[in-house]
């Protein structure tokens, strides 16, 4: 009994430590805040964040001259630009959205879903030779048109499948893959058909433009040889 009383008497008062703990917590928080502010200030001082700078656009680059001379220069430049504009039938090919548009005298006459190049690079493991499966950018022209085109498979067509290219040239000819028509734009780039209609609208080709059967026939019949093609 005595022992119990002593133990009870030795128990610390609940009031005093609680107040001390509060002070300790407050002091710790203030200390942490000071340290955090200091660290933040040091890091902010060290940092070089991207900052928008005032941009003053000024018009220059042109010599001020006689008004008549300026007008003449403007007219010459406008005429030079006008000469470059396509006429008749031309095609535009958006290689990101995979859309082919046909224009006739400035009016849109056909919009088609196509497939364009993947942009992937293929490397020959034997010699490190590379092919980039890009649809080219810029202006091209339809150089010639063919019914039932035959594909002479280049080396990359075999290497991509993990095969060595055949030594016999006759093994390269494929009369099934290009569809009913081929419109050749030079450097091996062709607007042609496809066996894989479900892949239209996607970047899956090796650089050529694939079209569905009806759209391909429309382009074949309406785009004469020499028609310009704008690829972007």
């Amino acid at each position, binding site marked *: 009994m005595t022992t119990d009383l002593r133990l009870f008497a030795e128990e610390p008062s609940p009031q005093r430590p609680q107040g001390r703990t509060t002070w300790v917590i407050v002091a710790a928080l203030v200390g942490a805040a000071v340290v955090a502010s200091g660290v933040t200030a040091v890091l902010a001082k060290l940092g070089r964040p991207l900052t*928008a700078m005032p*941009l003053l656009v000024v018009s220059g680059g042109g010599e001020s001259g006689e008004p008549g001379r300026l007008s003449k220069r403007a007219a010459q430049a406008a005429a030079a630009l006008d000469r470059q504009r396509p006429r008749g039938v031309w095609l535009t090919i958006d290689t990101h959205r995979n859309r082919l548009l046909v224009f006739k005298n400035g009016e849109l006459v056909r919009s088609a879903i196509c497939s364009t190049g*993947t942009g992937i690079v293929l*490397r020959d493991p034997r010699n490190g030779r590379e092919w*980039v499966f890009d649809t080219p950018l810029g202006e091209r022209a339809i150089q010639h048109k063919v019914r039932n085109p035959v594909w002479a498979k280049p080396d990359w067509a075999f290497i991509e499948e993990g095969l060595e290219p055949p030594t016999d040239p006759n093994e390269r000819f494929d009369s099934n893959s290009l569809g009913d028509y081929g419109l050749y734009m030079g450097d091996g780039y062709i607007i042609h058909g496809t066996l894989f209609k479900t892949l239209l609208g996607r970047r899956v080709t090796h650089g050529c433009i694939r079209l569905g059967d009806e759209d391909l026939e429309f382009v074949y019949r309406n785009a004469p040889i020499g028609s310009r093609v704008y690829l972007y």
Partner: protein
Amino acid sequence: MLRSVLACTSISLVAAAAWCGEEIPHPARVATLELEASLAKKPGVYLVLDTERRSLEIRARGIVLDSVALTGIELVAQQPLFGGAAPTTLPLPALWTVESGPGDTDREVIAPELLRPYVSEDEEEEETTEDEAEPRRSAPTPSPTPVREPPTSYRARLDSGWDLWITEQLPATSFWGQLKAAVADGWLRLRGRGPHLSPALAVAMKGEDARRLHHLLRAGMPILLPAALQ
């Protein structure tokens, strides 16, 4: 896009027609027109970044192929948080060329480890039974590698010494946003990982628009900045 293509007459051509009238053209605009005429002589695609109309157009031979609306244009550079940012003058018109961009570098490379000897179809038919026969190999196979979606934020190095930064969102301009960016950058620098970025003309646009410009920013791509006249 359709509208812009349908119009198919570049703004400069329309403007040029107007200038050819009685109005005396501004020398800077004449210079713009001459620069575009020199670009249109070549068969390549070029970009026209109009700071006044806030648009980026894809053109070839003087016609507008496609147009992207910009939600912001700023010059951004790495600056200390507490230090004045000096104004930078941009004389227009200007013709810049991409030295290297994501269209050159951001590409996937595939390479078979080993090539098997080619076996002609006739030999193959003899070797395989009907059940084992594979589909005709001459048919092209769908691309085995899915194409990656281009990013919405990337930089292209220009011959002007600046970068062209295509982004969906421009850097924060509020004090707290800047402070946060400064602390994050300071932490990277403390560990020796701080990026050193060239000053950039940052153009903000929708994510989808940023993706479709990605492949165009490759070495040699000309960018015309026409004169801006208020």
